[in-house]
């Protein structure tokens, strides 16, 4: 399931609700669940950041996320996947993204979750504009490789 939301969300509550809802589909088959939660920092690129606006391209965002999930399912035996992404005005400590993948075995769950997250970062049309402490705004030019910043 894919969900784009402009409201704050609590990822572990969403997971619990989704797992209950999908019980029939997962029961007996699932051996592994891998979960990624991405949260907003209060710093980036050497500067303090007090807020951010996440812009997106409605409909294309969902369409490209569907492609990403389909690509993951082609490569790994994924039983189910959940992606929730925040848009609009966000603040440090807000959860920006949740990716959860269920599979029979841990290898597929780990690998597919990583694949979905990296593909989301490079293919799905979201853009971050940061608000610095002096109220100046700057667009994030590109995503990092996920290891340094």
């Amino acid at each position, binding site marked *: 399931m894919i969900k784009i939301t402009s409201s704050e969300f609590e990822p572990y509550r969403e997971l619990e609700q989704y797992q209950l809802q999908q019980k029939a589909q997962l029961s007996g088959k699932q051996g592994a669940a891998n979960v990624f939660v991405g949260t907003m920092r209060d710093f980036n690129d050497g500067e303090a950041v007090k807020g951010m606006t996440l*812009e997106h391209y409605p*409909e294309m965002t969902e*369409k490209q996320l569907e492609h990403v999930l389909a690509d993951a399912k082609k490569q790994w035996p994924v039983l189910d996947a959940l992606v929730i992404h925040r848009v609009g005005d966000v603040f440090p400590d807000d959860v920006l*993204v949740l990716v959860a993948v269920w599979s029979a075995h841990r290898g597929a769950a780990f690998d597919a979750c990583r694949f979905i997250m990296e593909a*989301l970062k490079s293919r799905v049309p979201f*853009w971050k504009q940061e608000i610095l402490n002096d109220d100046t705004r700057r667009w994030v*030019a590109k995503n990092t490789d996920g290891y340094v910043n």
Partner: protein
Amino acid sequence: MSIKVRYFASLKELIGRDSDVCEFTSGMTVLEAWQSVVPDKVIPNNILAAINMEYVSLDALLTNEDELAFFPPVTGG
């Protein structure tokens, strides 16, 4: 005969508007549409383009009533 052209994020600010209507001519490419609606600016090197919400290259051909979008590298997650 026309296509809708949309701009997002920093590109929208650079151009100063979020959309244009481009007169469509048969055989028109994505790059030609840019040159028609943003004649005063060279197309940025790192620009991404989509027709009807699917990624395309700048030499892709347009069809009447397509929705064409231009935007910078994506930065979600």
